[in-house]
């Protein structure tokens, strides 16, 4: 029998003894809410009155015309309160924290979206809040730091290691090991020790269940393919869960892939699920964050769970690279690793350049500003659309809005008037 918290060979709870009792308490609280018939209703009601659930499904006519079909549909997680799917998980965990009677929440954040969502939840529920954020990410995402602080959170810069998301997770685990009596760790993605992958996937499944219903109601059919960006994997698992029952796959061994046991597959029927990882500057440069689609990932154990990591032969984690801070992470959900090995989800990459192009096209054609993380899904869909038929239907999970990326995007596009504005602003501050 599969042990709880395991997905194939992945998952588990590789944690110091000091945290075992705390995770057991959390698992018990989560099991209770799953059994409680009123909980999901309470959660849905909170999300429909405090956020914008259900988020719309938008038909993207102009993109459809631009590519001469297939039909593009976009699931609008960018319209959530705080601008990304992260709030789904955070509000769910907030309700769990209330039930456990704790008074303080901590979280790690990469792009800052999860930090802002957690600070928002803490303000709403009246919890004390500390956010750990890598120093590199703080530089990339200053506006989110500003909002977290305004929302009443303490933002702690993490100066260890690569100074990005993984280091923020380590620091949050250390805080938790010291303060677990009062404190809950609001892990932001479908990673980490059991029960986090399962619990975060549970809350994010709201995306997929809505999307499936909307496809059937608005379009009258299921999509041919569903695309989602994959960092830790929470938005991807969120939407994929609505369609996992629909994919009939025919696994075949890919002779060009030298990793043993990895299956490529053809979808004979139904819905194909495509997870898009950060290709960074290109897989050939080694500067990327692709654990599953590239041949560079290997199975390991870190940060409390077993999955594919970007690591060297000794098991030391490597630095990762992406224009999108939220995808810049060494590990990936153990649940996604299991689906990867089973051939139920196909993993691809999009490079920084492809992502910026896709961001521009989506802004111009649809009037939607996607987050760079979400643009990975768009970029891959745009690349593959020409091979698809005009009858096919593509569903893209637009996990967040891109306003937060204004500095990165303006830099990448080399926008002169923006530079001038910042220079003038800086002069005014230093005067």
């Amino acid at each position, binding site marked *: 029998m599969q042990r709880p918290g395991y997905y194939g060979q992945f998952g588990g709870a590789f944690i110091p*003894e*000091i945290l*075992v009792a705390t995770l057991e308490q959390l698992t018990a609280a989560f099991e209770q809410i799953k059994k409680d018939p009123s909980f999901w209703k309470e959660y849905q009601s909170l999300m429909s009155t405090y956020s914008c659930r259900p988020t719309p499904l938008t038909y993207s006519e102009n993109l459809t015309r631009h590519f001469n079909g297939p039909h593009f549909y976009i699931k609008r997680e960018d319209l959530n309160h705080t601008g990304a799917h992260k709030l789904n998980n955070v509000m769910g965990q907030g309700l769990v924290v209330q039930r456990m009677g704790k008074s303080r929440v901590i979280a790690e954040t990469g792009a800052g979206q999860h930090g802002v969502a957690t600070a928002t939840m803490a303000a709403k529920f009246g919890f004390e809040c500390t956010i750990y954020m890598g120093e590199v990410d703080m530089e990339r995402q200053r506006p989110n730091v500003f909002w977290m602080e305004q929302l009443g959170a303490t933002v702690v810069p993490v100066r*260890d290691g690569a100074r990005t998301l993984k280091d923020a997770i380590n620091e949050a685990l250390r805080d938790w*090991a010291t303060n677990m009596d009062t404190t809950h760790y609001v892990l932001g993605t479908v990673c980490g020790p059991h029960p986090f992958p399962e619990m975060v996937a549970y809350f994010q499944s709201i995306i997929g269940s809505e999307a499936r219903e909307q496809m059937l109601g608005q379009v009258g059919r299921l999509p041919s393919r569903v695309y989602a960006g994959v960092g830790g994997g929470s938005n991807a698992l969120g939407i994929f869960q609505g369609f996992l029952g629909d994919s009939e796959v025919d696994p075949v061994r890919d002779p060009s892939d030298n990793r043993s046991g990895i299956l490529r597959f053809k979808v004979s029927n139904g819905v194909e699920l495509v997870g898009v990882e950060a290709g960074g500057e290109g897989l050939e440069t080694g500067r990327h964050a692709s654990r599953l689609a590239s041949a560079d990932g290997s199975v390991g154990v*870190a940060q*409390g769970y077993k999955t594919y990591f970007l690591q060297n032969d000794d*098991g030391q984690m490597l630095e990762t690279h992406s224009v999108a801070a939220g995808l810049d992470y060494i590990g990936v959900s153990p649940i996604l690793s299991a689906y990867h090995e089973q051939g139920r989800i196909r993993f691809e990459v999009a490079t920084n350049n492809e992502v910026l192009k896709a961001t521009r096209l989506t802004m111009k054609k649809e009037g939607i500003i996607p987050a760079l993380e979400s643009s990975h899904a768009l970029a891959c869909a745009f690349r593959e659309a020409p091979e698809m038929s005009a009858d096919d239907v593509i569903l893209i999970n637009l996990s967040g809005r891109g306003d937060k990326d204004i500095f990165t995007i303006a830099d990448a596009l080399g926008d002169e008037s923006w530079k001038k504005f910042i220079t003038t602003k800086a002069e005014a501050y230093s005067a």
Partner: protein
Amino acid sequence: MLEDYIRQRLKERGILLMAHVVVGYPDLERSFELVKAIVSAGVDVMELQIPFSEPIADGPVILNANQSALAAGIRVDDCFKFALRVTQSFDIPFLFMTYCNIVFKRGEERFFAEAKEAGIVGTIVPDIPPEEGTSYLAAAAAHGIDPIFILSPTTPPERLAYLAGFGRGFFYCVARKGITGAKTTFSTELDEFLSRCRKVTQLPLALGFGVSRKEDVDFLKGKVEIAVVGSQALRILNTDGVEAVGDFFHRLR
């Protein structure tokens, strides 16, 4: 064997001292000098930490030493060679302390076979609870190396009894909640915790996290068999160098 050594040594001294060294910090040669100075100062057991990039159970001082050693290019192979060198040079038991991924990536069987060859007698891997440790425990047993488990004040009594079934050599008790290197107020809570541990195991107990002065060591005499000194020695190494660490351990006796 480790347990016998501890009991024997305890007859000569009221309490044993266990030191901690991050292999390759600040570099391999100075690590060796450090081990030498600490052994000369009369320390009884030593943990050699194989650096890991994500040491979640370590505080800032040891974390920083792990990262510096890795940045300087230390490989796991170097740590095994280093272990062989020190076990051949000094006559106290040496343990490996590291994290799960280092053992997992090398393969449990190979890790323990090579550890045995290097003269290592025990292992402390804080992120392998017994539930996740089936192959780890089997490989340790096959090579006669003692897997040392950690008991924490947050561990409920039934779980303490469960853990007691897996430990060999001694148990490593944490004096306080949290990570290595922060100050501890030893208290009646500690006595209660230690008596819970004694109820479930006959093995010697080591107490870690926060020991930094002779008074701490004296206070622990009669309470536990081993006092663990970690972060404080590393702080002294960082500010005053190898010799000062030797003096520090002399003063703890």
